């Protein structure tokens, strides 16, 4: 099994998870790199992407697992050949064959930017910091069984807040597997408890992955 770490930025952030799988399947084909196929009547090339990314979210640490069918290509060459056939916004950063087990994946460092049409009011940074300093922070979560409430604080490992100019920025490390916190929930908390600081636009970026003990995940 091979793994590619790739970034998804720019206009490519609007491509959905399913469409991205198809996009990679075609890029492999264009690059002349045959993939193993699923069994069955309509065999599909087997590629899988860990932790589906929401549409609109940028990432610098996506993982794609795949297997080549009957050919061996040096990993560096694989990276180059794929990048030649990909589209702007999707870049393979590295390819390796010794990826860690996905179940060891635990934490995600992310950046969240909340943008406003005017300068953020004085003291906004403090209020947000105070909000995340509470004992409990209940945020609504949409799931299979409708909307439930969830305390997001236990899933935030570290958080820094910076307010300047027209934006408030979070740098956070959050749980991303069992349980997982969608970084967008940080914004949801602000919108719920500090409605006056509801942003006109929010941007989320996945920056880096860690295992359950906080060691870099690859």
């Amino acid at each position, binding site marked *: 099994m091979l793994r590619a770490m790739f970034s998804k930025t720019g206009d490519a952030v609007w491509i*959905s998870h399913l*469409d991205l799988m198809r996009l990679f399947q*075609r890029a492999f084909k264009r690059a002349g790199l045959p993939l193993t196929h699923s069994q069955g*009547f309509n065999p599909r090339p087997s590629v899988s992407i860990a932790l589906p990314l929401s549409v*609109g979210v940028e990432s610098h640490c996506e993982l794609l697992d795949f297997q080549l069918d009957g050919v061996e290509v040096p990993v560096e060459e694989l990276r180059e050949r794929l990048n030649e056939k990909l589209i*702007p916004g999707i870049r393979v950063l590295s390819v390796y064959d010794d990826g860690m087990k996905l179940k060891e994946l635990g934490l995600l460092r992310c950046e969240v930017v909340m943008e406003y049409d005017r300068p953020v009011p004085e003291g906004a940074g403090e209020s947000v910091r105070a909000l995340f300093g509470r004992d409990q922070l209940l945020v609504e979560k949409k799931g299979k069984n409708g909307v439930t409430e969830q305390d997001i604080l236990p899933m935030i490992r570290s958080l820094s807040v910076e307010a300047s100019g027209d934006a408030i920025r979070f740098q956070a490390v959050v749980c991303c597997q069992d349980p997982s916190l969608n970084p967008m929930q940080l914004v949801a908390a602000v919108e719920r408890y500090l409605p006056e600081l509801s942003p006109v636009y929010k941007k989320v970026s996945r920056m880096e992955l860690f295992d359950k003990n906080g060691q870099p995940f690859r």
Partner: protein
Amino acid sequence: MTQLLNRILPLVQKPARYTGGEYNEIKKDLADVRVRVAFCFPDTYEIGMSNVGMRILYGVMNQMDGVWCERVFAPWGDMEEQMRQHDLPLWALESRGPVKDFDMIAFTIGYEMSYSNILNMLRLAGIPLRSSERQGLHNMVFAGGVCAYNPEPLADFIDFFCLGEGEEITPEVLDLYDRAKAEGWTKEAFLLAVSKIDGVYVPSFYRHEYAEDGTLEAVVPLVDVPAVITKRVVEDLDRAYWPTKMIVPSTEIVHDRANLEVFRGCIRGCRFCQAGFSCRPVRRKSADVLFRQAKETLEDSGNNEITLSSLSTSDYRELKELTDRLIPYCAQSKINLSVPSLRADNFSRELMEKLQTVRKSGLTFAPEAGTQRLRDVINKNLTEDEILTTCANAFSGGWNNVKLYFMLGLPTETDEDVLGIAELVYKVIKTWKEHAVNKKRGLRVHVATAYFVPKPHTPFQWEKQITPEEYLRRCKLLKDHFYSRSIEYDYHAPDLSRLEAVMARGDRRLGEVILAAVENGAKLDGWDEYFRYDLWLDAFRSCGVDMDRYTTRGYSDDEILPWDHIDVGVSRGFLLRERDRAYEAQITPDCRHGCAGCGANKLLKEVSCDA
């Protein structure tokens, strides 16, 4: 623009269709571009990107030095709302430049129900809708596609039409524009010059005069322009441009696959079918060229599906040679080969088996009419025997699902013909009972009927459309004769087909109506989510235009038809002959049994009709 778009995109469905940036998208440096063309498809991205004609012409135009052709699609309603809210004018995908900055605005029109989208797109672009309101060369609006074979409903809005296949005429038109722009011509001077290009129709150079009873009395050329405009065809398809570097959409579209057009024209002559007549004469591509293009396209795009397209692929003379090479190639490269529109002849049956067509796309028939008599009237050469034999084979192979498509309201149709549909369906059920290997799984027969729309340039171009009430009566009659629980019967409301019939055979007086409907908010009429019949009825009422004039009235054969000055190759004499044969339930054998003298071969200079 990009920043604004980033704020809007999270709020709309399927945002990837608005960003461009797909594999093989063509970008150029504006400093090298003299003519910017906004190529507009009057429907959504998913529909437009599936359109082969658009892919061809995108490549043709971008091959030209100094020309940059970019794509524009109709936004979905949620995006349109955001655009209005943020004063964001319609833009082209490649450069994200506003459409109103473009020199030329091209539309390809294949469906009458997209007329409102054309106007709505111009409106969203901030471009005056009427041709007469646009001065100068800038924002020159032109159009092509099968709907241009009766261009009159759009005559007020489109500066000129290009009739027929676009591979050759488009560069001629763009070259002329390039020169006109460099030399600073007036719009009038350009239109006059472009009208000299074969296949170009400039509606403003013709006056339409109506008699007191409302019929068209004369089409008067106002300047030195041809009285009849003849469509263009490409003589040698092997040498014609074909886009082997196709744009690969990053998001799902309707037909997400590579496409190979094996021939143009049709040898069959089903009398209701506009494409069958208006795409004549017959010209084929060689299996060699097709195989090479298939390989190139698949390797370049990475697609895992390719489809062979044409109006009736079984009639492609080199089908065996081509599939003999494509099948192993596709199997080896794990590519799905699909060959739709196959008839039930022996070779095709074998081919379907090899490709497992039935397993993949189901067992589908379009007998169009329920009785052999009526099938003879429409010259649909599909017998009950063929249907039942194919069904028997499929049923004994474990298949238990059939789709059957019919039309109601065909010329000479009686209740007996309507009930013939029910009878045919029961015979299919009986065949299943006799041949099914596993009866426990049950059978599903899906029956759909459409409301017949008479189309220009067909033998039925003069026919009356039945009234919506009569159509619904026939639907109900049929429904009342479906007792089996295996049958699932679908019929559409008549509204859309009635409107389609009006537009298909309409004249210039409809321009006002389309404008009024769009001003009332009509758009995306081809989509159930947006189609609002009431807006259209209001528009007809307020403009004082009677829909029945174009539908139930029919046209008499001594009347000037609004599309009589458009020549698609097939002669009026032939159409009249075919109509008479229809009334006598006389079939006309397909062209392989001998040329039926349709007249379309006159369009060819170097080769002859290859039926």
